[in-house]
């Protein structure tokens, strides 16, 4: 490595006069001197915190914020689950926002006037996402009062009479 940087070494003898050799096409070039010392200095240099990490942190923060907002919006749009009771004259909406069901399920039940329904225990009911807003939970009337029996079914196709 004694030749000057980028100075091509002597080309090979061409096979025939006027013909390029491969080393004419791709001659060896010499790198600038002092490469090893520069590398040592570079390795000893404290590693800089790359910009990529800052960008990644910003991206992660934005993602968390996005997910939080999406969850909040999703929660706001939670469907109402309608609970019907065979003994009751109407339907009771037990949605998170406790709004009356505007659908064909009848008037909202006034719990004050129906103490039997108000005393019913509540159980968590998981409704598939695609079925939200279309499900009704009906409490059956079993013979044994210690046993509670609920029937979960879609609004449609089910008789609404009680």
């Amino acid at each position, binding site marked *: 490595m004694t030749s000057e940087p980028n100075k091509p070494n002597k080309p*090979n003898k061409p096979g025939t006069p006027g013909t*390029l*050799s*491969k080393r004419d096409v*791709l001659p060896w*070039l*010499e*790198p600038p001197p002092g*490469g090893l010392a520069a*590398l040592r200095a570079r390795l000893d240099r404290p590693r800089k915190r790359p910009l990529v990490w800052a960008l990644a942190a910003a991206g992660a923060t934005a993602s968390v914020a996005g997910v939080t907002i999406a969850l909040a919006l999703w929660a706001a749009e939670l469907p109402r689950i309608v609970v019907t009771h065979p003994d009751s004259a109407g339907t009771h909406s037990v949605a998170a926002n406790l709004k009356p069901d505007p659908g064909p399920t009848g008037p909202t039940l006034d719990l004050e006037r129906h103490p039997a329904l108000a005393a019913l225990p509540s159980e968590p009911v998981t409704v598939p996402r695609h079925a939200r807003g279309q499900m009704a939970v009906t409490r059956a009337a079993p013979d044994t009062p210690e046993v509670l029996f609920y029937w979960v079914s879609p609004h449609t196709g089910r008789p609404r009479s009680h």
Partner: protein
Amino acid sequence: MQTAGSAVLDKARLERLYVDLERPMYNVVYRWLWDSAEAHDVVQETFVKLWQMRSQVAVETVRPLAYRIAVNLASNRRRWFRLRRWVSLEQQPDEPAGANGTPEDHLQQAAVRRAIDHLPERYRRVILLCDFSGMTYAQVGEALRIPAGTVGSRRSHALGLLRQALGDFDDHDE
């Protein structure tokens, strides 16, 4: 990846590897960037990256890995330069830095550079690694993550394209 029982890439090994690979690697990446300082910087950057990932590096396969890193760095930098030139309308120098000799030599070197520049990237990678790295087809294939047979066919195709651009030349090294 480092396997149990394989040698560790310590600083002394890295420096020895640098001494071995600096010149051939410089010659490979120079044909991407056509700039001595940038090519030298890419070589150095390659070894810094190797050092940073030394816990995952197996010494036995470090050469193909080093060339893979170098070629990818050079390729990315070349893309960035082209974009920068396009934005700033900066002119690219016509001849390799340090080229000297007769006007015929200059013309010839400019033609060679154009021919190499116009090679599709997959061919350029293969022909430069085969001609400068001293690696076998299998190692070049490992560096480029292609089969050894593909290395041979791409190299042959690349030589054909260079011959089309430059006329016939001897395909012998020394």
